[in-house]
């Protein structure tokens, strides 16, 4: 790598095949190597850059692994209390109706402590975009059970695996949200392959376009890995995610243009 940086003569515009979005702050991310957060950050900033709306965008970061998202995203941001991002975003959008407003939240933040704020912001049809990163675990606090932790899945507070009798069921917030009338677009994506990352980016773009057209709330879940919390290598964790998370949290659009997407028989 160092050799590559030592060759400024090859760093010419015509040779660039991949570059960091200018809206990503030039500092190391605080996320574990292999984590999906960095990729979602990048997709989000690329969308804002491509739409040329950085000056009109206000973001709200959560409490959780992405608590410091505002350090990496070079736009105006507010750090919310745990679970309250949709309440902040509601007020911001209503007080600044011409701004683009998004929240970026994890599963503990959005689907446990912030359930009420999430459901009511969605149900009111606030004209905002919610980006929901679901890795089935509390990453930042050290791998505790989340509302989205799968049955049988081990965490530091479900050390023998989550069981229904003692710990209840995992919650499918996204399916729940899809039924609310104020919600225009609901989708579930991932960023573990380039194809999936591109689909996530497309979904985020769609969310911001819906805001632009003032057509209601857009809700984009990204099922992601937590290799540290799951105690796997990044490669193992992505495989585990495909085999275990996706069957319970299937990828794809759930609601488009305010209408629930009809599922095929064999699904």
């Amino acid at each position, binding site marked *: 790598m160092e050799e590559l940086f030592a060759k400024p003569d090859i760093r010419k515009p015509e040779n660039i095949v991949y570059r960091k979005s200018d809206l990503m702050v030039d500092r190391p991310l605080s996320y574990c190597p292999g984590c999906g957060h960095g990729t979602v950050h990048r997709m989000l900033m690329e969308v804002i850059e491509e739409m040329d709306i950085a000056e*009109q965008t206000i973001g709200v970061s959560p409490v959780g692994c992405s608590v410091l998202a505002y350090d990496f*995203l070079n736009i105006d941001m507010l*750090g919310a209390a745990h679970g*309250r991002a949709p309440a902040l975003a509601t007020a911001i959008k209503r007080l600044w109706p011409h701004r683009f407003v998004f929240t970026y939240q994890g599963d503990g933040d959005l689907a446990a402590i912030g359930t009420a704020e999430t459901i009511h912001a969605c149900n009111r049809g606030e004209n905002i975009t919610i980006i929901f990163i679901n890795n089935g675990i509390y990453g930042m606090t050290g791998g505790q059970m989340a509302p989205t932790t799968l049955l049988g899945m081990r965490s530091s507070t479900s050390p023998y695996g989550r069981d229904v009798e003692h710990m209840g069921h995992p919650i499918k917030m996204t399916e729940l949200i899809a039924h609310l009338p104020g919600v225009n677009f609901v989708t579930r994506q991932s960023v573990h392959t380039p194809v999936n990352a591109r689909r996530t980016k497309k979904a985020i773009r769609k969310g911001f376009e819906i805001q632009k057209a003032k057509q209601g709330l857009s809700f984009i879940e990204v099922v992601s890995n937590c290799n540290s919390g799951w105690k796997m290598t990044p490669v193992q964790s992505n495989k585990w995610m495909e085999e275990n998370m996706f069957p319970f949290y299937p990828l794809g659009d759930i609601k488009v243009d305010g209408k629930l997407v009809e599922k095929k028989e064999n699904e």
Partner: protein
Amino acid sequence: MGELRLMKGNEAIAEAAIRAGCDGYFGYPITPQSEVMEYLMAEKPHERTGMVVLQAESEVASINMLYGGAGTGKKVMTSSSSPGISLMQEGISYMAGAELPAVVVNVVRGGPGLGTIQPSQADYFQAVKGGGHGDYKMIVYAPASVQEMSDHVKLAFDKAFQYRTPVMILSDGAIGQMMEKVELFDPIPRRTDEEVIAACPWASTGRPKTRNHNIITSLDLDPAGQEKVNLKLQEKYRMMEQNEVMYEEIMTSDAEYLFVAFGLSARICQKATDIARAKGIKVGLFRPITLFPFPTVQIAATGSRVKGILVVEMNAGQMIEDVRLSLGCKVKIEHFGRFGGIIPSPDEVAKALEQKIIGG
């Protein structure tokens, strides 16, 4: 002279918010303050001034809506009553930490728990000693009339932005519900977005190319950084103590005894003063208007000239601690209180002065 109206205290709060150029009110119904949002909704402030009024799903949501609005430099307010204010403590702490301006009105009712819907002053400690977690204070105004309900809203917004801090108006169910004559102040136009951006360069309003991105947060994982935040806050609180103390003295120049009371209790003590004076007892009234910053120096000056002080509160003895801290052991200081929603009568208070201070 401004426009005169006969209004409830809660209505005066709402009308004053519109006139103060408030951009957003976010609230949740709770007795005995529900008239604030009811008045606002009836007034159609979105038509009158463009003000946003939103009924939130909870007090937790409303205070966090305030955080969001305040973080973008807008003038925002909420109101509630004791149980609801308890739910807001987390958000108030975050706003104090992130240095966000906002106005929070507490129309206090008796507690603890669900308590009662009748007036009380039992939330004094919660209001002036921090309330939520962490080392913070906020300016606390204690209106004693419907007129002051209106005046304090305007003042609270000014101070909230001057110091970038949440400000509380600590009222009670009686002042919220009673009707009095109010002289309304002339409306102040709401600021335009451009004016907000110019006045609040710290706010997250959308980053222009000409500046770095603004971040509103109360988080600093580096303890050295967090200590700096705390030192800055403390410096701000010392400035408030120097510059923002407000109080009123009634018949204290020749007083041999003193009532110290805030809000509704001060109104009752005014009448009790007349009753006692009619009996030849030279008593005066000291009324703190700001509960934080507390008029420590001023109480010490007036209090050290008298033989005894009766602190009258609709609680079990909260502000008396600050009166004692102001005067030490120099003067006899006793407390008289009724709780749980009971309003003491002036006769009861005058009698308590005789029994606890003069006779005791």
